[in-house]
Protein backbone atom coordinates (compact mmCIF):
# COMPACT_ATOMS: atom_id res chain seq x y z
CA UNK A 1 0.00 0.00 0.00
CA UNK A 2 1.30 3.46 -0.83
CA UNK A 3 -0.04 6.64 0.76
CA UNK A 4 -2.45 7.11 -2.12
CA UNK A 5 -3.35 3.62 -3.24
CA UNK A 6 -4.81 0.55 -1.56
CA UNK A 7 -4.34 -2.94 -2.90
CA UNK A 8 -7.69 -4.68 -2.54
CA UNK A 9 -8.44 -8.34 -3.25
CA UNK A 10 -12.10 -9.22 -3.75
CA UNK A 11 -13.68 -12.64 -4.12
CA UNK A 12 -15.34 -13.03 -7.51
CA UNK A 13 -17.59 -16.00 -8.17
CA UNK A 14 -19.67 -18.31 -6.04
CA UNK A 15 -18.30 -21.40 -4.27
CA UNK A 16 -15.64 -21.62 -6.92
CA UNK A 17 -14.01 -18.45 -8.07
CA UNK A 18 -10.90 -16.37 -7.55
CA UNK A 19 -9.61 -13.25 -5.88
CA UNK A 20 -9.31 -10.27 -8.22
CA UNK A 21 -6.92 -7.50 -7.28
CA UNK A 22 -7.76 -3.82 -7.63
CA UNK A 23 -5.88 -0.60 -6.93
CA UNK A 24 -8.16 1.84 -5.12
CA UNK A 25 -7.46 5.45 -4.13
CA UNK A 26 -6.95 5.69 -0.39
CA UNK A 27 -8.95 8.51 1.14
CA UNK A 28 -9.33 9.92 4.60
CA UNK A 29 -12.07 8.32 6.74
CA UNK A 30 -12.65 5.72 4.02
CA UNK A 31 -14.67 2.66 4.98
CA UNK A 32 -14.46 -0.84 3.51
CA UNK A 33 -17.91 -0.27 2.01
CA UNK A 34 -16.56 2.89 0.33
CA UNK A 35 -13.77 0.78 -1.17
CA UNK A 36 -16.17 -1.87 -2.51
CA UNK A 37 -18.47 0.82 -3.91
CA UNK A 38 -15.55 2.58 -5.62
CA UNK A 39 -14.53 -0.68 -7.30
CA UNK A 40 -18.09 -1.41 -8.41
CA UNK A 41 -18.56 2.08 -9.85
CA UNK A 42 -15.15 2.52 -11.43
CA UNK A 43 -13.65 -0.87 -12.20
CA UNK A 44 -16.11 -3.75 -11.95
CA UNK A 45 -19.75 -2.87 -12.71
CA UNK A 46 -20.78 -6.54 -12.39
CA UNK A 47 -19.46 -6.82 -8.83
CA UNK A 48 -22.28 -8.04 -6.56
CA UNK A 49 -22.48 -6.80 -2.97
CA UNK A 50 -25.21 -5.75 -0.59
CA UNK A 51 -25.75 -2.58 1.42
CA UNK A 52 -28.53 -0.20 2.31
CA UNK A 53 -28.22 2.37 5.10
CA UNK A 54 -24.41 2.94 5.20
CA UNK A 55 -24.63 4.01 8.85
CA UNK A 56 -24.65 0.73 10.81
CA UNK A 57 -28.39 0.39 11.18
CA UNK A 58 -29.59 -2.12 8.60
CA UNK A 59 -27.00 -4.90 8.98
CA UNK A 60 -26.90 -5.74 5.28
CA UNK A 61 -23.27 -4.96 4.37
CA UNK A 62 -21.41 -7.51 6.51
CA UNK A 63 -18.49 -9.26 4.78
CA UNK A 64 -15.29 -11.04 5.74
CA UNK A 65 -12.48 -8.50 5.78
CA UNK A 66 -8.93 -9.78 6.22
CA UNK A 67 -10.29 -12.99 7.71
CA UNK A 68 -12.71 -11.41 10.21
CA UNK A 69 -16.45 -10.86 9.79
CA UNK A 70 -17.23 -7.15 9.98
CA UNK A 71 -19.87 -4.55 9.18
CA UNK A 72 -18.16 -2.84 6.28
CA UNK A 73 -19.97 0.50 6.47
CA UNK A 74 -18.51 1.21 9.91
CA UNK A 75 -15.11 -0.39 9.39
CA UNK A 76 -12.49 2.21 8.59
CA UNK A 77 -9.78 1.11 6.21
CA UNK A 78 -7.12 2.81 8.34
CA UNK A 79 -8.05 0.62 11.32
CA UNK A 80 -7.49 -2.69 9.61
CA UNK A 81 -4.76 -2.07 7.06
CA UNK A 82 -1.34 -2.58 8.57
CA UNK A 83 1.54 -3.27 6.24
CA UNK A 84 -0.60 -5.33 3.88
CA UNK A 85 -3.67 -4.73 1.79
CA UNK A 86 -7.32 -5.59 2.15
CA UNK A 87 -8.90 -8.94 1.30
CA UNK A 88 -12.70 -9.01 1.14
CA UNK A 89 -14.78 -12.19 0.97
CA UNK A 90 -18.43 -13.07 1.60
CA UNK A 91 -19.53 -14.06 5.12
CA UNK A 92 -18.77 -17.62 6.21
CA UNK A 93 -21.45 -20.17 7.21
CA UNK A 94 -23.98 -18.93 4.65
CA UNK A 95 -24.61 -20.07 1.06
CA UNK A 96 -22.93 -17.81 -1.48
CA UNK A 97 -24.97 -16.22 -4.26
CA UNK A 98 -22.40 -14.19 -6.15
CA UNK A 99 -19.18 -12.35 -5.28
CA UNK A 100 -19.76 -10.78 -1.84
CA UNK A 101 -23.45 -11.58 -1.54
CA UNK A 102 -24.65 -14.44 0.67
CA UNK A 103 -28.09 -15.97 0.93
CA UNK A 104 -29.53 -14.96 4.32
CA UNK A 105 -32.47 -17.40 4.06
CA UNK A 106 -30.96 -20.08 6.36
CA UNK A 107 -30.06 -17.37 8.87
CA UNK A 108 -33.68 -16.25 9.21
CA UNK A 109 -35.03 -19.79 9.01
CA UNK A 110 -32.96 -20.47 12.11
CA UNK A 111 -34.58 -17.47 13.80
CA UNK A 112 -37.90 -19.15 13.17
CA UNK A 113 -36.58 -22.49 14.48
CA UNK A 114 -35.57 -20.75 17.72
CA UNK A 115 -39.05 -19.21 17.87
CA UNK A 116 -37.60 -15.79 17.31
CA UNK A 117 -40.93 -14.15 16.53
CA UNK A 118 -42.97 -12.18 19.03
CA UNK A 119 -46.24 -13.80 20.10
CA UNK A 120 -48.58 -11.09 21.38
CA UNK A 121 -50.36 -11.62 24.67
CA UNK A 122 -52.87 -8.82 24.06
CA UNK A 123 -54.86 -7.44 21.17
CA UNK A 124 -54.42 -3.97 19.73
CA UNK A 125 -57.67 -2.87 21.35
CA UNK A 126 -56.30 -3.55 24.83
CA UNK A 127 -54.20 -0.96 26.69
CA UNK A 128 -50.46 -0.93 26.02
CA UNK A 129 -48.41 -3.02 28.48
CA UNK A 130 -46.71 -0.86 31.05
CA UNK A 131 -43.27 -2.20 31.94
CA UNK A 132 -40.91 0.02 33.97
CA UNK A 133 -37.55 0.57 32.29
CA UNK A 134 -35.72 -0.53 35.46
CA UNK A 135 -37.60 -3.84 35.63
CA UNK A 136 -34.92 -6.61 35.85
CA UNK A 137 -36.37 -8.62 32.97
CA UNK A 138 -36.75 -5.52 30.82
CA UNK A 139 -33.12 -4.62 31.46
CA UNK A 140 -32.09 -8.07 30.20
CA UNK A 141 -34.19 -7.54 27.08
CA UNK A 142 -32.71 -4.06 26.55
CA UNK A 143 -29.18 -5.48 26.69
CA UNK A 144 -29.86 -7.79 23.75
CA UNK A 145 -32.52 -6.05 21.71
CA UNK A 146 -30.26 -3.90 19.51
CA UNK A 147 -29.28 -6.76 17.17
CA UNK A 148 -29.19 -5.52 13.55
CA UNK A 149 -29.25 -9.04 12.02
CA UNK A 150 -26.01 -8.51 10.16
CA UNK A 151 -24.99 -12.19 10.45
CA UNK A 152 -21.49 -11.37 11.75
CA UNK A 153 -21.90 -13.59 14.85
CA UNK A 154 -23.35 -16.37 12.69
CA UNK A 155 -20.31 -16.19 10.41
CA UNK A 156 -17.87 -16.10 13.33
CA UNK A 157 -19.37 -19.04 15.22
CA UNK A 158 -17.42 -22.32 15.14
CA UNK A 159 -20.44 -24.39 16.17
CA UNK A 160 -22.48 -23.06 13.22
CA UNK A 161 -19.65 -24.32 10.99
CA UNK A 162 -19.49 -27.74 12.65
CA UNK A 163 -23.16 -28.41 13.30
CA UNK A 164 -25.66 -27.63 10.51
CA UNK A 165 -28.55 -27.98 12.99
CA UNK A 166 -27.25 -25.27 15.34
CA UNK A 167 -29.46 -22.20 15.10
CA UNK A 168 -26.62 -19.86 15.95
CA UNK A 169 -25.99 -16.92 18.29
CA UNK A 170 -28.24 -14.35 16.57
CA UNK A 171 -31.33 -16.57 16.71
CA UNK A 172 -30.62 -17.51 20.32
CA UNK A 173 -30.00 -13.90 21.31
CA UNK A 174 -33.40 -13.07 19.84
CA UNK A 175 -34.96 -16.00 21.72
CA UNK A 176 -33.29 -14.79 24.93
CA UNK A 177 -34.89 -11.35 24.58
CA UNK A 178 -38.31 -12.95 23.99
CA UNK A 179 -37.92 -15.40 26.89
CA UNK A 180 -37.51 -12.34 29.14
CA UNK A 181 -40.20 -10.20 27.49
CA UNK A 182 -43.24 -9.97 29.76
CA UNK A 183 -45.42 -9.04 26.78
CA UNK A 184 -44.69 -12.29 24.94
CA UNK A 185 -47.62 -14.70 25.14
CA UNK A 186 -45.66 -17.95 24.78
CA UNK A 187 -42.42 -17.70 26.68
CA UNK A 188 -42.58 -21.42 27.52
CA UNK A 189 -42.69 -22.06 23.77
CA UNK A 190 -39.44 -20.15 23.33
CA UNK A 191 -37.73 -22.31 25.96
CA UNK A 192 -39.07 -25.44 24.34
CA UNK A 193 -37.84 -24.35 20.90
CA UNK A 194 -34.31 -23.56 22.12
CA UNK A 195 -34.11 -26.87 24.01
CA UNK A 196 -34.37 -28.85 20.79
CA UNK A 197 -31.38 -30.38 19.00
CA UNK A 198 -29.28 -27.52 17.66
CA UNK A 199 -30.58 -25.14 20.30
CA UNK A 200 -28.81 -23.33 23.13
CA UNK A 201 -27.23 -26.46 24.59
CA UNK A 202 -25.15 -26.93 21.43
CA UNK A 203 -23.18 -23.74 22.20
CA UNK A 204 -19.54 -24.39 23.19
CA UNK A 205 -19.11 -20.96 24.81
CA UNK A 206 -16.12 -19.99 22.66
CA UNK A 207 -17.40 -16.43 22.68
CA UNK A 208 -16.66 -15.63 19.02
CA UNK A 209 -20.09 -14.01 18.74
CA UNK A 210 -19.45 -11.53 21.54
CA UNK A 211 -15.93 -10.96 20.26
CA UNK A 212 -17.08 -9.93 16.78
CA UNK A 213 -20.54 -8.42 17.35
CA UNK A 214 -20.30 -4.94 15.81
CA UNK A 215 -22.90 -3.42 18.11
CA UNK A 216 -21.34 -4.84 21.28
CA UNK A 217 -24.00 -7.36 22.22
CA UNK A 218 -23.17 -10.43 24.30
CA UNK A 219 -25.02 -13.39 22.74
CA UNK A 220 -22.83 -15.82 24.72
CA UNK A 221 -24.29 -14.48 27.97
CA UNK A 222 -27.82 -14.75 26.56
CA UNK A 223 -27.25 -18.33 25.42
CA UNK A 224 -25.89 -19.22 28.88
CA UNK A 225 -29.02 -17.61 30.35
CA UNK A 226 -31.20 -19.77 28.08
CA UNK A 227 -29.31 -22.86 29.26
CA UNK A 228 -30.11 -21.97 32.87
CA UNK A 229 -33.74 -21.11 32.09
CA UNK A 230 -34.33 -24.36 30.19
CA UNK A 231 -32.69 -26.41 32.94
CA UNK A 232 -34.90 -24.73 35.51
CA UNK A 233 -37.98 -25.34 33.34
CA UNK A 234 -36.97 -28.98 32.94
CA UNK A 235 -36.65 -29.44 36.70
CA UNK A 236 -40.05 -27.80 37.22
CA UNK A 237 -41.56 -30.06 34.57
CA UNK A 238 -42.70 -27.16 32.41
CA UNK A 239 -40.56 -27.95 29.38
CA UNK A 240 -42.67 -30.75 27.91
Amino acid at each position, binding site marked *: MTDETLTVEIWRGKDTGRFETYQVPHRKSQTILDVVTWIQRNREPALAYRFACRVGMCGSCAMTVNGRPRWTCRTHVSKIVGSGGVRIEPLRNLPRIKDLVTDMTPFFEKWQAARGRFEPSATRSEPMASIPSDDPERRIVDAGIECINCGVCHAAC*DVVTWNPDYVGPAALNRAWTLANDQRDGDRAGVLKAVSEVGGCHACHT*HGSCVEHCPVGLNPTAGIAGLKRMTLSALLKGSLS
Partner: protein
Amino acid sequence: MIRRAQRHLGFFAALGHRLSGLFLALFLPAHFLVLGLALEGDAALEGAIRWSDQPLVKMAEWGLVVLLTLHLSFGLRVLVLEFMPWRDSRKAMIGLGAAASLVVGLLFLFNLG
Protein backbone atom coordinates in the same frame (compact mmCIF):
# COMPACT_ATOMS: atom_id res chain seq x y z
CA MET B 1 -5.21 -24.09 11.36
CA ILE B 2 -6.49 -21.32 13.59
CA ARG B 3 -8.36 -18.76 11.53
CA ARG B 4 -7.96 -15.06 12.15
CA ALA B 5 -11.52 -14.77 13.44
CA GLN B 6 -10.70 -17.41 16.07
CA ARG B 7 -7.72 -15.58 17.53
CA HIS B 8 -9.30 -14.42 20.77
CA LEU B 9 -9.13 -15.45 24.42
CA GLY B 10 -12.39 -17.44 24.47
CA PHE B 11 -11.27 -19.69 21.64
CA PHE B 12 -7.81 -20.22 23.11
CA ALA B 13 -9.35 -21.09 26.48
CA ALA B 14 -11.62 -23.68 24.83
CA LEU B 15 -8.63 -25.05 22.89
CA GLY B 16 -6.52 -25.18 26.06
CA HIS B 17 -9.29 -26.99 27.90
CA ARG B 18 -9.66 -29.63 25.21
CA LEU B 19 -5.98 -30.19 24.45
CA SER B 20 -5.11 -30.46 28.15
CA GLY B 21 -7.93 -33.00 28.49
CA LEU B 22 -6.53 -34.98 25.58
CA PHE B 23 -3.00 -35.04 27.03
CA LEU B 24 -4.37 -36.08 30.42
CA ALA B 25 -6.33 -38.88 28.75
CA LEU B 26 -3.10 -40.07 27.13
CA PHE B 27 -1.33 -40.01 30.50
CA LEU B 28 -4.01 -41.93 32.39
CA PRO B 29 -3.22 -45.43 30.94
CA ALA B 30 0.45 -45.01 31.94
CA HIS B 31 -0.67 -43.84 35.38
CA PHE B 32 -2.86 -46.89 35.90
CA LEU B 33 -0.16 -49.18 34.53
CA VAL B 34 2.30 -47.92 37.14
CA LEU B 35 -0.32 -48.21 39.90
CA GLY B 36 -1.02 -51.76 38.72
CA LEU B 37 2.62 -52.66 39.42
CA ALA B 38 1.73 -52.63 43.10
CA LEU B 39 -0.17 -55.85 42.50
CA GLU B 40 3.09 -57.51 41.50
CA GLY B 41 4.80 -56.53 44.74
CA ASP B 42 6.39 -53.46 46.23
CA ALA B 43 9.71 -53.91 44.41
CA ALA B 44 8.13 -53.34 40.97
CA LEU B 45 6.31 -50.21 42.10
CA GLU B 46 9.38 -48.94 43.94
CA GLY B 47 11.42 -49.39 40.75
CA ALA B 48 8.92 -47.33 38.76
CA ILE B 49 8.91 -44.60 41.42
CA ARG B 50 12.71 -44.48 41.42
CA TRP B 51 12.67 -44.25 37.63
CA SER B 52 10.30 -41.28 37.85
CA ASP B 53 12.88 -39.38 39.94
CA GLN B 54 14.91 -38.63 36.80
CA PRO B 55 15.03 -34.92 35.91
CA LEU B 56 13.32 -35.36 32.54
CA VAL B 57 10.45 -37.31 34.08
CA LYS B 58 10.16 -34.65 36.80
CA MET B 59 9.87 -31.98 34.11
CA ALA B 60 7.16 -34.02 32.42
CA GLU B 61 5.45 -34.27 35.79
CA TRP B 62 5.57 -30.48 36.05
CA GLY B 63 3.88 -30.26 32.64
CA LEU B 64 1.27 -32.71 33.84
CA VAL B 65 0.52 -30.66 36.94
CA VAL B 66 0.17 -27.47 34.84
CA LEU B 67 -2.11 -29.26 32.36
CA LEU B 68 -4.21 -30.66 35.18
CA THR B 69 -4.67 -27.22 36.77
CA LEU B 70 -5.42 -25.69 33.39
CA HIS B 71 -8.02 -28.36 32.66
CA LEU B 72 -9.56 -28.00 36.11
CA SER B 73 -9.73 -24.20 36.09
CA PHE B 74 -11.00 -23.93 32.50
CA GLY B 75 -13.53 -26.68 33.28
CA LEU B 76 -14.73 -24.77 36.34
CA ARG B 77 -14.95 -21.70 34.11
CA VAL B 78 -17.35 -23.55 31.81
CA LEU B 79 -19.47 -24.60 34.81
CA VAL B 80 -19.59 -20.99 36.04
CA LEU B 81 -20.54 -19.80 32.56
CA GLU B 82 -23.29 -22.40 32.30
CA PHE B 83 -24.78 -22.16 35.77
CA MET B 84 -24.05 -18.73 37.26
CA PRO B 85 -25.53 -15.40 36.23
CA TRP B 86 -22.65 -13.51 34.62
CA ARG B 87 -22.37 -10.87 31.97
CA ASP B 88 -18.94 -9.36 31.39
CA SER B 89 -16.58 -11.53 33.42
CA ARG B 90 -15.75 -14.07 30.70
CA LYS B 91 -12.20 -12.87 30.08
CA ALA B 92 -11.50 -12.36 33.77
CA MET B 93 -12.37 -16.02 34.36
CA ILE B 94 -9.97 -17.07 31.61
CA GLY B 95 -7.23 -14.93 33.13
CA LEU B 96 -7.91 -16.39 36.56
CA GLY B 97 -7.66 -19.95 35.21
CA ALA B 98 -4.40 -19.26 33.38
CA ALA B 99 -2.97 -17.51 36.47
CA ALA B 100 -3.96 -20.46 38.69
CA SER B 101 -2.09 -22.84 36.37
CA LEU B 102 0.96 -20.60 36.46
CA VAL B 103 0.93 -20.36 40.26
CA VAL B 104 0.47 -24.12 40.74
CA GLY B 105 3.23 -24.77 38.17
CA LEU B 106 5.60 -22.44 40.03
CA LEU B 107 4.75 -23.99 43.39
CA PHE B 108 5.54 -27.41 41.93
CA LEU B 109 8.88 -26.15 40.61
CA PHE B 110 9.80 -24.60 43.99
CA ASN B 111 8.84 -27.83 45.70
CA LEU B 112 11.21 -29.73 43.40
CA GLY B 113 14.10 -27.54 44.46
